[in-house]
């Protein structure tokens, strides 16, 4: 896979692809040679065409009749890995901290680059810490079931929250979050 660092194409950070693929492997969604192929030639610090991530996503979508709950779990698993083995612990100190990290799409911008109209955003639009409510607006090209899992996993990983619920049934791009 050719690394692509230019701003003309949509590219995704190698660690994200690795994280996604590793989550699939951990959950036994893919196994054996197919799993090895998923992360072959992917360098953690490299940038790769977004299509590479799509390829892995397709493996899951094509394998499951109802892939929504699976992709949600992949997103959760991916963020648990990010927190446990990646930089997550340094960046996020508690569950709400994960939401703060999405302010101005800073979290998302660290893993996806490219033309603005293709990159989109993953932005914390509203946060009521006292009331335990938040809203994230996502216009990214990522699968929305997986993004729901990313939010749940990112907020769960620090271990301080007792309750987390994320809904986006009405509008897949709007994630209504409740937490306590």
């Amino acid at each position: 896979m050719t690394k692509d660092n230019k701003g003309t194409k949509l590219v995704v950070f190698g660690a994200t692809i690795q994280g996604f693929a590793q989550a699939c492997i951990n959950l036994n969604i893919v196994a054996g040679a197919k799993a090895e192929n998923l992360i072959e030639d992917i360098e953690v610090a490299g940038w790769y065409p977004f299509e590479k991530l799509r390829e892995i996503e397709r493996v899951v979508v094509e394998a499951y009749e109802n892939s929504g709950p699976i992709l949600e779990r992949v997103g959760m698993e991916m963020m648990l890995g990010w927190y446990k083995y990646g930089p997550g612990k340094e960046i996020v100190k508690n569950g709400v901290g994960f939401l703060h990290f999405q302010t101005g799409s800073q979290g998302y911008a660290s893993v996806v680059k490219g033309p603005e109209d293709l990159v989109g955003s993953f932005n914390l639009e509203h946060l009521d810490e006292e009331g335990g409510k938040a809203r994230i607006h996502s216009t990214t090209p990522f699968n929305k079931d997986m993004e729901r899992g990313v939010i749940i996993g990112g907020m769960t990983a620090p271990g301080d929250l007792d309750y987390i619920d994320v809904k986006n049934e009405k509008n897949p791009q709007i994630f209504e979050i409740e937490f306590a």
Partner: protein
Amino acid sequence: MSLEELLESGTVPAKGDITEEELVKLFRKFRGLQKKQERDQAFWAATNENLKIAYEKLDEKERELARAYSIIQDDLSVANKIQRALLPEPSRKMVSELELAVYQKQLAEVGGDYYDFFNTCSDSYAIGVFDISGHGVSAALVMTYLKAQFMTILETLDSPKAIVEWVNNTSYDFLKTVKKYATVNFVVMNAVALRYVCGGGFGLLLSGKNRTVFEKRDAFLGLRRRSFHEYELPFKKGDLLAMYTDGMVEAQNDKGEDYSVQRLNELIVKNAKKPVQAILDHCMEDYTNFRSKDGDDITLLILRKKV
């Protein structure tokens, strides 16, 4: 007692054991667990559904495989009958002059070992024993091709050398193309002598107290475009000829030892005075007791010139 301590103890709290703040926390924890359970249920339901579909697909594939296997088995069964039918029956004249016994076993339904009886254009008998490389259908198809070649040329030629060279030259390109070759052990016999060509395979002639093992100086059919060597031996009444492929002699016992040419030849010599069918039966019994399993097609042909 804190909420965590209460939960840890497993004791049902009495009124006043939990503060309002702890009750709220307990409520949140409970809701959190409910949500987690909902997500887990959705995940496992999707996984189970996927497994169910995978099993259904697997069942369908198994049924397809079973159907395909059945078709192949039927075809192989027919191929086996065809190959058996292609094996020769000795002519009346041959039976009147030669005492003959043959054992042949293919490793699969069809195989690459092949023997044949012919009459030459000068009314001599010709006997060929061949072992086509590989096993199964491809070897059997080559067998039918070679049979046709020999039947064609035996109408015009009489010398084993000329016959085998003609078949080799005619078949060379074909055998190269299909990546096959065949051992050839070919004998033409008349009233007083036999002439043979041996490119692979084994031959043993017992004439009185003389024992002659066939010279094997030639290449297999399809390996090289070269001339072959022809040898002539006296073949009198009462003489015994055995021809066989490598299937028996290269079979091994549990210790990894070969059955061996020496063992088979000794056994033939030891039983040489018996009827040829009895000699053959002794050989097969000894072989069966020796070998751990068959690893190749087997052909053993024994004949004696009647007195």
